[in-house]
């Protein structure tokens, strides 16, 4: 049971899970089916919760456990259920129609990861010792953030843009947890509440767009111009 108290192992574990978060993000760019995309997001959020949990355990910061639990409860269980019910209700299981084709999107995501690593590297100070734990997770967080942005730009359907926004938020959460070992609890709670409300409001918005335009394609909203 030495591993449970060895911070070096904890660091490795967090890095490994962060790598999986990145892989899931790129898988989301490559995945075409809407339901699969939601499940990938759920898996990513679950891993995020696990990362927060291990940081809380290995750095003895019990208040992060609450953030970890809320991430899993909210983003890995509640939000995916809401989104899947929305998919059922508007009855669109169509494939996601990105603007750029999939191989090119995946390559661009790879490039964005590279950019994120270059940025993340400048924050790397090994001489700071244990205080710099999680610097490499910062690079992952920035790339998740950038790829989330790219996904929002690259997709036409309103619902997939909501998903992209949520992954972007995941990136921010990862950065916050890894760098600061958790923001004050009240801020965390505010952010979670924000995400929940955003998903509900955007869900209603998506439903209305679908009702009035018979499509989720946001490019049709151009007709509103005066």
């Amino acid at each position: 049971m030495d591993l449970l108290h060895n911070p070096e192992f904890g660091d490795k574990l967090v890095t490994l899970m962060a790598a999986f978060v990145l892989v899931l993000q790129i898988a989301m760019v490559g995945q075409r089916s809407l339901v699969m995309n939601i499940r990938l997001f759920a898996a990513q959020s679950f891993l995020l919760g696990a990362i927060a949990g291990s940081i809380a355990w290995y750095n003895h910061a019990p208040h992060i456990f609450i953030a970890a639990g809320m991430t899993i409860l909210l983003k890995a269980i509640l939000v995916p259920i809401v989104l899947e019910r929305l998919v059922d209700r508007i009855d669109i299981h169509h494939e996601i129609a990105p603007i750029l084709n999939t191989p090119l999107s995946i390559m661009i995501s790879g490039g964005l990861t590279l950019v994120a690593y270059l940025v993340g590297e400048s924050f790397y100070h090994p001489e700071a010792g244990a205080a710099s734990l999680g610097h490499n997770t910062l690079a992952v967080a920035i790339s998740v953030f950038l790829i989330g942005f790219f996904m929002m730009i690259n997709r036409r359907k309103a619902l997939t843009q909501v998903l992209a926004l949520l992954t972007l938020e995941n990136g921010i959460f990862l950065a916050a947890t890894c760098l600061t070992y958790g923001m004050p609890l009240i801020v965390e709670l505010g952010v979670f509440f924000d995400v929940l409300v955003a998903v509900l409001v955007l869900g209603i918005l998506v439903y209305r767009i679908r009702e009035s335009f018979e499509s989720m394609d946001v490019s049709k909203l151009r007709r509103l111009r005066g």
Partner: protein
Amino acid sequence: MTGTLLKVVAQLVLLLMLAPLVSGLIKTLKARLQMRRGPGLLQPYSDIYKLLRKGMVIPNTASWLFSATPYVVFLATLLAGLMAPMVAADTPIGLFGGVLAVVYLLGLGRFFVALSGLDAGSPFGGLGSSREMTVSALAEPTLMLAVFTVAIGAGSTSLAEIARVAINQQWRFLAPSQVLAFAALFLVLIAETGRIPVDNPATHLELTMIHEAMILEYSGPYLALIEWAASIKQLVLMTLMINVFWPFGLSTAWSLSGVWAGLGWLALKLLILSCTVVLVETANAKMRLFRVPELMAVAFTLGALALISTFLF
């Protein structure tokens, strides 16, 4: 000198005998998972034996290339197999080349099979060759990226050295770069051995076949050699993945007890890897051919990420 000869002979026998068994194992496991009885575990041996005794038909249009290909493929694959560590980190002919030689010996075999697919003059052959080249042109960069990731980690492209470094760092396979490289290599394994999302190994009668379309004109002993070479290639790729990424139980040098232990571990790990391949094959439907580049793009990105993260994690 006799020691080297002994190692070469031992590994040669192991490659020749174990490869059909792995193919048979995958077939049987797949059948069981799909609630079929399936062929017996030893069916590939009987197939090879049967084909070796049969006469063969050579198309009128075929040139010398058609007859040379089975030998070239068989020998190139065997040579690649001898360069890979199987039961001990020390490879029998490791002095002749490292991981790059293995990759390109397998590439040489593929090149000849594709040429003879064109040579036979049947439209299916040309179809298969062009598809095989498309897939392999996309799979090869990924393979190289994964290989470089591992080689940078070990500081050498010699497979014996890579395996030795891996043995000394038992937990290295948990590093993100290794995990990503392993995932990329797994996708390459599926593409290169013609497994289900990319190609269907169980059909000779499908318009979307790749490997089977190229060798459609082969019969008798030539077909036996090509099929045998294909199963050896599969074994070599699987052993490479196993011994480079999880080298538990691999001994550094050849000794009698070490070899037996290595063989046991190899069998166990081959079983696990085969189960994974079977699960992937059963859980997925075959992709449309135009979707294959997407899968390969994912593999390539995984490989590129693996290489990037060697430098940054």
